[in-house]
């Protein structure tokens, strides 16, 4: 490689100051590479001009895959030829982002050899992002990755890389095995992950309990959120210890319970479990004394997405409670039923959450083969514009 000179970056240099770790320092750590020098040049230019200098161009990727690589080109190619092509890979992370130092070094070595040496750990969907690759490097990197046991994640209108919270690996509240479910689903749908064939993207996220530490309810088409059915496990002695240690049980716990189902007489914390909505708050505050119940599983919610195009959506309840045992047949059946129906009738760039709103949840359930239950709604319809089916009205012709 020809050694270029790192450009002067007075504006960017400002961002090396201050206590928070600096991405400019990070970039400069790899600034012996011409590509990174040009990146700094382009970026400094953006800081001067208040505008980005990237554009999309033709689709690029690795053979046989439709997803996993985002093509990116500079619009200042003459000046900064080394970033004329500056694509990213999405490398599928291990579930819950656990790494051995060895694995990390493997990845670094591959990227050292072929790319910018810059990454995102991690992308917002969860992938390891290799930031800045020329088109010619795509295949070699892919080959080395798979040789070492790594594969690409999703992009485009495919199943996107599933992700999950740390769950049973390190959290006492996990109501199912998030890592296993995430891994299993990812492996099971390799074709859907790598070869876009849906109307638009489809994301899975697995959270072990209603705290939802992967924000699944906000950003996955299928949100799998752990929960339980039976009574919260209470160790009254430990509750008293909290009280003695200064926790105001009434104010900090009972008064904040959204279903107002707890009472505390100074000695015993009483929970009306039939009314509990499994919000986690009391368990969060009294972590040593309280635990989710023993009959565990997950609530399946569908349809979260960012605003484009009809406005952002949170996921909505689809199956109030599902047992979560490998091989997760129920989840897979549901997902496949959705993909079938949405795949056939969804419009281009229509997320499943928008699709459901367009066709109506009632119709959607019919097609998927689920019965409507009141848990799916925050309240029944207020408008009287009901589409009646023939069988409802006796005597209908």
């Amino acid at each position, binding site marked *: 490689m020809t050694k270029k000179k790192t450009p002067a970056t007075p504006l960017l240099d400002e961002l090396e100051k201050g206590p928070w770790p600096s991405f400019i320092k990070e970039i400069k*750590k790899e600034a012996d590479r011409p590509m990174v020098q040009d990146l700094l040049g382009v970026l400094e230019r953006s800081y001067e001009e208040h505008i980005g200098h990237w554009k999309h161009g033709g689709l690029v990727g690795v053979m046989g895959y439709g997803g996993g690589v985002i093509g990116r080109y500079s619009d200042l190619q003459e000046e900064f030829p080394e970033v004329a092509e500056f694509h990213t890979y999405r490398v599928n992370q291990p579930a819950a982002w656990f790494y051995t130092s060895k694995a990390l070094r493997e990845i670094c070595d591959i990227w050292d050899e072929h790319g910018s040496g810059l990454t995102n750990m991690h992308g917002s969907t969860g992938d390891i992002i290799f930031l800045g690759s020329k088109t010619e490097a795509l295949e070699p990197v892919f080959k080395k990755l798979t040789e070492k046991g790594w594969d690409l994640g999703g992009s485009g209108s495919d199943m996107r890389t599933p992700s999950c919270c740390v769950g049973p690996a390190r959290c006492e509240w996990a109501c199912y095995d998030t890592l296993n479910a995430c891994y299993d689903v990812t492996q099971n749908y390799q074709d859907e992950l790598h070869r876009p064939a849906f109307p638009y993207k489809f994301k899975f996220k697995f959270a072990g309990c209603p705290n939802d530490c992967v924000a699944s*309810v906000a950003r996955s088409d299928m949100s799998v959120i752990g929960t339980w059915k039976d009574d919260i496990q209470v160790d009254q002695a430990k509750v008293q210890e909290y009280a003695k240690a200064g926790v105001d049980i009434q104010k900090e716990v009972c008064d904040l319970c959204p279903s107002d189902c707890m009472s505390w007489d100074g000695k015993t914390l009483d929970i009306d479990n039939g009314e509990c909505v499994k919000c986690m708050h009391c368990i969060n505050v009294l972590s040593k004394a309280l635990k989710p119940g023993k009959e565990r599983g997950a609530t399946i919610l569908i349809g979260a997405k960012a605003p*484009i195009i009809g406005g952002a959506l949170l996921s909505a309840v689809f199956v109030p409670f599902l047992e979560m045992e490998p091989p997760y047949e129920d989840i897979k059946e549901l997902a496949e039923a959705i993909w079938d129906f949405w795949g056939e009738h969804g419009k281009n760039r229509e997320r499943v959450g928008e699709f459901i709103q367009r066709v109506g949840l009632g119709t959607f359930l019919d097609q998927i083969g689920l019965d409507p239950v009141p848990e799916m709604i925050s309240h029944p319809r207020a408008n009287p514009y009901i589409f009646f089916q023939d069988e409802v009205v006796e005597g209908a012709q």
Partner: protein
Amino acid sequence: MAIPDRKTDIGPPHYEKHLPPIVKKNYGKWAYHEIPEPGVLLHVAESGDKLYSVRAASPRLLAITTIRNFADLADKYCDGYLRFTSRNNVEFLLTDQKKIEPLKKELADLGFPVGGMGNAISNIVHTQGWVHCHSSATDASGVVKSIMDELYPHFVDMKLPAKLRIAFACCLNMCGAVHCSDIAVLGVHTRPPRIDHADVPKVCEVPTLVASCPTGAIRPATVNDKPSIEIEDEQCMYCGNCYTVCPAVKINNAKTDGISIWVGGKVSNARHEPMFSKLAVPFLPNNPPRWPEVVSAVKNIVEVYAKNARKHERMGEWIERIGWPRFFKLTDIPFTRYHIDDFTHAGETFKRSAQLKH
């Protein structure tokens, strides 16, 4: 469809290969946790085993040099095991309590403070910005760095009423859970795209382009005898969706792109159901390298929240209790017509009751 001679569709490595022995042993059998000090999480297993997680800040954009540093630290302090979090921090997984201080020291020397736990501000979830994305109305990492330099004390301490999650996205595509954050910082375009009529017929399909506009602002038109489109400026709200489907329709604008701030979202089910973030500040200018207006607006909101919210009350729960009029008064943010929704479900956001504080 697999191509011979290459491995494909093998999926990610099995997570078990990456789990430290203490995790494998106590998998699913953790008893409780504590936060003995900011940035250090102690999980105690039913077996009595203790796992210390030391959480260090990360700019997310990491050089392989740094990742190798982390690998070295992991080897030195925790048998080579670490993980990243859903907010892009890095966590070292220790079994030996005595190693915490030396690790923290080395991290500090490398420039990676520990914290972000409990009632703190953790890392800002963010996106590409001018480093990589074509749609961005602003830079991502630069704004994030500027804000976190200022809010740093809330990362290393745990003195807030509750967790405070900040997210950043550089355009309306909102790559992240930006729309459900305690504070969301969002790059916005504020002018209709400019059309490169010469390019349209080359790189775009007119019908797809017309269909892409949520407000129907785009109409087919013939310009210089070639098929192109025209945009009804008054109908455009600068979402950039047309640009996503057609690069000849340019949404980026150096003079009028900027930043908006949104507040009160959450995703956890704890206490209050998940909520969207709502508009607080409609527009602040792009002022690199330090975005002072944005930084001080965010800081102001954090400080007013910190001072006024009750324990365990997330931003949105606090605002819901005091009411939006009070929020605008306390933060001294002007209320404008832009705060009033005028999209599809606008009417659902009107105050349809006489329950008011006067």
